[in-house]
């Protein structure tokens, strides 16, 4: 157990990512407000970005831009950073689309709460 926790502590960025992921997905699954769901999605995606970037990190590493003077210090792995650029764009696109859907739903239902929407649809909502 001690060894396990020690290893977890060494890998603290991954652990943080896991916790963020859990928070994000719990928000998505338990909240009924559509905005909160969307924010949950964003938290979750950030968690994965964090994990990726951490995987590319290196002790005493520097940004992966070639510089002539100092080649002693290692560069960090540039691949995860490049991938996450794409990942962020994807995340932005999803967010934009989800917001558009929320706007359309709000126009119709006058609420952003999923529970109230289904109440209205079932015709039992009272002002």
């Amino acid at each position: 157990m001690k060894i396990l926790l020690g290893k977890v502590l060494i890998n603290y960025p991954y652990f943080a990512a896991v916790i963020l992921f859990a928070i994000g997905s719990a928000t998505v699954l338990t909240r009924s407000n559509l905005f909160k769901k969307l924010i949950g999605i964003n938290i979750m995606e950030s968690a994965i970005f964090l994990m990726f970037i951490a995987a590319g990190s290196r002790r005493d590493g520097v940004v992966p831009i070639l510089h002539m003077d100092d080649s002693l210090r290692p560069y960090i792995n540039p691949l995860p950073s490049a991938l996450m650029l794409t990942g962020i764009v994807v995340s932005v696109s999803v967010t934009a689309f989800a917001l558009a859907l929320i706007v359309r739903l709000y126009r119709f239902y006058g609420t952003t709460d999923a529970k109230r929407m289904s109440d209205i649809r079932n015709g039992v909502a009272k002002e």
Partner: protein
Amino acid sequence: MGKYLRLAFILILALLTGYGVLVTVAELPPYGADTNLTYNQVSERYINGALEDTGVPNMVTAIVLDYRAYDTMFETIVLFTAVIAVLITLKGAQEEGDRK
């Protein structure tokens, strides 16, 4: 009763997943170590060969715009798709009316 049962079920599931994740995190290659498996021929070439291969000193740029440009093409397509999806969602769908 059913509610508590469900809660207990979710709790057990969460605990199991949590434990699994914990073990996985512990097992992953140590953070920031030089011996990590990601430092292989792939990242070697990105780091050492980027200038020669692509003429760009910024390795991230080299990857995004040259080595993995196919991904970047789809990245723009994601944006394009999202734009069209937003348009189709909002424009012309108004006539369903304001219920309020």
